[in-house]
């Protein structure tokens, strides 16, 4: 589904990613673990074409994405849920979902009704302004909005950050539901336990380098890697 090969990404003059490579196969949930500032968000933005890498290649469904604008990547099936949510605060919950739906008659897999099924709390607040939702509700809305584009592959950037434990459990559950529905997920997280509960495999990123990659089982067991790259 996704193949990132040896990319270097910069913000202006600052060099953020150094030769990052990763693969995500169809139907997998893969996590990208790392501390704040490790390069998780930059990796996501590179894949979405928002901060294109200067070197290296990214292939989505076998096709290189270099020079393809983000809106076209979205139409090819990538969706992005940013860590700071970026809900359209002035639009209602319903409108936030509505503008993301490409075909007005919603022939695709995902429509408002199905998003409300996954996140019932959004249904109650559908005519509320996005800016008036709580942090957790905004996270759900951001995921719901991404689903409305009917993606095959979804980039989830720290969906559990700053949420109460109960909500973290709810999001874990929803990610598993997405997986069951056939979606492929790349999940950036600092919350190792949650991330490992929902993932098939993981990468550990630190200082813009991929330091380690392994199955969930190994990541659970490898205390050394955890201590070195993940614990604050």
């Amino acid at each position, binding site marked *: 589904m996704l193949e990132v090969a040896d990319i270097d990404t910069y913000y202006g003059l600052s060099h953020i990613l150094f030769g990052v490579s990763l693969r995500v196969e169809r139907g997998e949930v893969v996590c990208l673990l790392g501390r704040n500032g490790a390069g998780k968000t930059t990796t996501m933005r590179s894949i*979405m074409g*928002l901060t294109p890498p200067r070197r290296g290649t990214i292939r989505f469904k076998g096709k290189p994405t270099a020079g393809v*604008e*983000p*809106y076209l990547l*979205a*139409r090819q099936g990538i*969706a*992005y849920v*940013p860590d700071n949510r*970026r809900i*359209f*605060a*002035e*639009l209602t919950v319903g*409108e*936030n979902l*509505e*503008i*993301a739906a*490409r075909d*007005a008659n919603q022939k695709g897999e995902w429509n408002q009704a199905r998003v409300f099924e996954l996140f019932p709390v959004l249904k109650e607040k559908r005519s509320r302004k996005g800016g008036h939702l709580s942090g957790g509700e905004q996270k759900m809305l951001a995921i719901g*909005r*991404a689903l*409305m*584009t009917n993606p095959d592959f979804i980039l989830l950037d720290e969906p559990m950050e700053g949420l109460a434990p109960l909500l973290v459990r709810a999001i874990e559950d929803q990610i598993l539901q997405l997986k069951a529905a056939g979606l492929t997920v790349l999940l950036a997280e600092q919350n190792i336990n949650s991330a490992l509960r929902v993932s098939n495999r993981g990468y550990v990123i630190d200082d813009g380098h991929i330091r380690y990659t392994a199955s969930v089982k190994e990541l659970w067991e490898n205390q050394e890697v955890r201590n070195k790259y993940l614990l604050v």
Partner: protein
Amino acid sequence: MDPSAVASLLLVGLARAMILFIVAAGLTFVLGVLRVPNIAHGSLYMIGAFTAFTIAEVLGKNPAGFWIALVVAPLVVAAVGLIIERGLLSHLYQREHLMLILFTFGIMLILNDMVKFVWGADYRSVTPPEILDGSFTLGDFAIPRYSIFLLILGPLVALGLWLLSNKTRLGKISRAAAVDREMVGVLGINVSWVFAAAFVIGCLLAGLGGALVAPTTSISLGMDHTIIIECFLIVTIGGLGNTWGALIGALLFGVSQSLGLLFLPQYAIVFPYAIVVIVLLLRPRGLLRSVW
């Protein structure tokens, strides 16, 4: 003071406020969605007025001439706007505001010279159609029919804009793009075309304002300067990007001008500006919420 004179002066002020609103609404829409302060907006309004003049003249005595001009002139201006946006402006959105201001200032100079080239420096005028000419009289209270027409049209335009931004997909996307254009792109929406559409809508309103003002004034080079200054003040006191703010600002502007004419005719021109100063002292970000 003669009450009927007061009433008709107020009415004329309100009618003028409707034209100011229509033009300012276009400016504020572009300002809100594209974040571009379009200094050439006044020139587009002037092109609307001259185009309306030409259409009315070509159609001569045809009573439908004015109505056709009212529809076609805004479309001509919208076409000019589309060329400017697709050809030039769309390549500059990443630039800082200062660059955009300089760019639209340059466009203003070019458009003004083109107007001079096409229509010359003479004063022109358009006669309103018979149905809108003259006045109603109620006792000794005279109401210009054209003012009534403007007072009906203004709220209709406001309603149309409200429906556009709240009930159509384009409007909702525009509101989202005004705040976070990158995120709108991530949802698979081609923001570039949304901007083009928003710019064209702004130009359409400038053109409509120009066509509407044509029968009320002499059409001349330089009419763009007054309106662009007034419109920038109106959108500033109303709240940048806020359509209702543009309406309130235009009403304050038009009515204070009338009241000035009434009480201190020799200082009338100062009144609207005094209102602007007072509003900005009390509410520096404008009366209604700015999208900036």
